[in-house]
């Protein structure tokens, strides 16, 4: 796999091989990494090895610039979350940080070099209306003005419509659970909250390690959007490496996946971390995962789809079948998310609406 398509992937698998890259290959590495949102991660990867200064001048400037930007995003996330806790202080509501914001506040490895778009957190469903009201009364505005979309979020999804800060332009995604309630594998929030851990900052919590991994997995494999797929796969790699050192983690993870009904995404996580990034998974976790293994035919189909869709969304990585693979996975995500009777009218409306906008 020393071809152009897998250039970035190969560098992530074997970072020390960066010395063998030609300037022409660096050109593609920077472009593929920028598109996947992992340019800063490469900067930190090489910095941690003490090798950053060996990168040729041209690409080095882009790595340093991305590193600077990533550090700024971490500062922004910290500040934004503190602002949210101040606005919500009177409500005395527990705030469970999710994804990137959780990685930052818990000081977990994926926070390094991650570029953030939104800040995700979870509050109890019966308090979400009060939370929304408090944020709207402060300086956040709703981003969704269309009445249908407003209703869609509230009725069928696991979050309220995203809120945008009037001046800072940061976006909050406020959830009441981690998976859309209409999904085939829906997840009740109570066990997640019961297992969650506290942080130093009052009112803030993060999911338990197993649940953090499962949330990241379900988000990557069941959401249908893969433009940042490689970054999310690297998040999972970091989380497993980090939590894998905690005693009992590898026994607890498969059990928790079974309890929450998230064995599918965890199976795919193990499979593609091994296939694409050579991440070692302990045998006992793998043997558990064998129980959830899909049929040989389905496995071959999944491989042909995910091997393509998890590559950077850059033209140098696209084969003839890549657009089809991405489309099929997008369709699969909708199928997993909603029953067909709900989905069809939604997609029809979206299609008509898009036509009107043109």
């Amino acid at each position, binding site marked *: 796999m020393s071809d152009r398509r897998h250039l970035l992937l190969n560098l992530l698998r074997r970072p020390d091989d960066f010395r063998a890259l030609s300037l022409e290959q660096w*050109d593609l590495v920077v*472009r593929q990494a920028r*598109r996947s949102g992992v340019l800063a991660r490469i900067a930190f990867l090489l910095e941690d090895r003490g090798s950053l200064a060996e990168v040729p001048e*041209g690409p080095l*400037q*882009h790595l340093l*610039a*991305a590193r600077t930007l990533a*550090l*700024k995003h971490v500062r922004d996330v910290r500040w934004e979350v503190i602002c949210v806790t101040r606005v919500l202080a009177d409500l005395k509501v527990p705030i469970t940080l999710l994804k990137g914001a959780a990685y930052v506040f818990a000081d977990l490895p994926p926070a390094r070099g991650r570029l953030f778009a939104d800040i995700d957190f979870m509050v109890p469903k019966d308090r979400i209306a009060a939370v929304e009201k408090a944020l709207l009364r402060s300086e956040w505005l709703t981003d969704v003005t269309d009445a249908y979309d407003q209703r869609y979020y509230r009725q069928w999804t696991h979050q309220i419509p995203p809120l945008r800060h009037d001046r800072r332009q940061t976006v909050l995604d406020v959830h009441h659970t981690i998976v859309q309630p209409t999904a085939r594998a829906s997840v009740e929030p109570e066990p997640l909250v019961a297992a969650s851990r506290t942080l130093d900052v009052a009112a803030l919590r993060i999911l338990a390690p197993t649940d953090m991994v499962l949330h990241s997995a379900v988000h990557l494999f069941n959401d249908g959007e893969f433009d940042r797929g490689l970054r999310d796969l690297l998040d999972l790699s970091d989380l497993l490496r980090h939590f894998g050192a905690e005693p009992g983690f590898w026994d607890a993870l498969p059990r928790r996946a079974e309890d929450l009904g998230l064995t599918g995404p965890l199976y795919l996580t193990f499979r593609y971390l091994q296939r694409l990034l050579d991440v070692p998974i302990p045998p006992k976790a793998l043997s558990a995962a064998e129980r959830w293994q899909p049929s040989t035919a389905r496995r071959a189909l999944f491989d042909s789809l995910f091997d393509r869709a998890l590559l950077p969304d850059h033209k140098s990585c696209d084969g003839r079948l890549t657009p089809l693979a991405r489309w099929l996975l997008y369709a699969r995500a909708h199928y997993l998310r909603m029953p067909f009777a709900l989905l069809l009218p939604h997609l029809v409306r979206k299609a008509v609406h898009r036509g009107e906008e043109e």
Partner: protein
Amino acid sequence: MKLSDWSRQELVARLAGPGLNLWTGPFLNRIRTRIPAVVDGISLLYADYPIEAEGDFADFHVALTQPLGPRRWLRRQVNFEFDGLRIFKPLPLDQALPMMEWGLNWCIGGHAHQYLIIHSATIEKDGFAAILPGAPGSGKSTLTAYLVNNGWRLLSDELALLSLEDGRVTALARPISLKNQSIDIIGGLIPSARLSRRSEDTVKGTVALLKAPADSLARIGETAQPAWVIFPSYKKDAATALVPRPKADTVIEIGRNAFNYSIHGRQGFDLLSKVVDGCASYDFTYSDLAEAREVFAALEPAAAPAREVGPKTSSG
């Protein structure tokens, strides 16, 4: 090797095929397009810029393309693509050349965080740089175009690139974007001016691009020490006046005019404070370019306590 070493056919073939590898200051741009007006603009404005015949690593991969589909024939448009992504809404085809310039500025402002980037013109004399931040309509580009043809060197018309280590300014020396009446004013005052074709009805009105002076390009590799921050403001019939302004206020105002000030956090604040501390800072009101030239000619680096100049200096 410079761009004018190529024949027109060769340039067209490169732009249509693998791309033209064009150096603008510290950045190597790989540009692709089949739009004749852009080819014309590039061969006029960038004739003397260095190029790479065989490109390996490029900083920015850009293309100017025409959207496909039926609308192509009804209303001819142009897209700016950054490595295959369309960053802006399409513009009328007539604006393709200014769009390339705006797009290249966007590439730098959005990615080159190895610099602190201020939205301002910068010009140099004797190794010292004057930073000229200015709102659109302040006459910043007109003043810059005039001064760089009268004793000053062009560093940039739009972007001041400050080194994070020592605050020195790196030159871009790209073409100057002139708008509306300034096109004829500069054309009239500078006989040697090479101007691109005009694009009408852009968001900034009529735009024409002025080729950078030859000596600015020849010395593009020389950085400069910031010595003055001057906020220009063109006012019709106004007397020429150079008025000192408080440094704290200048730091805030430049910070507001910077593309990536907040990205640099504490480091950005410290750098900007240090740079402004080492500079004399002024508001500059003018209506007469010849008088403006004299005021600028009289500037001394690290000037003794700043003094007020004008109402009208004697011309001589």
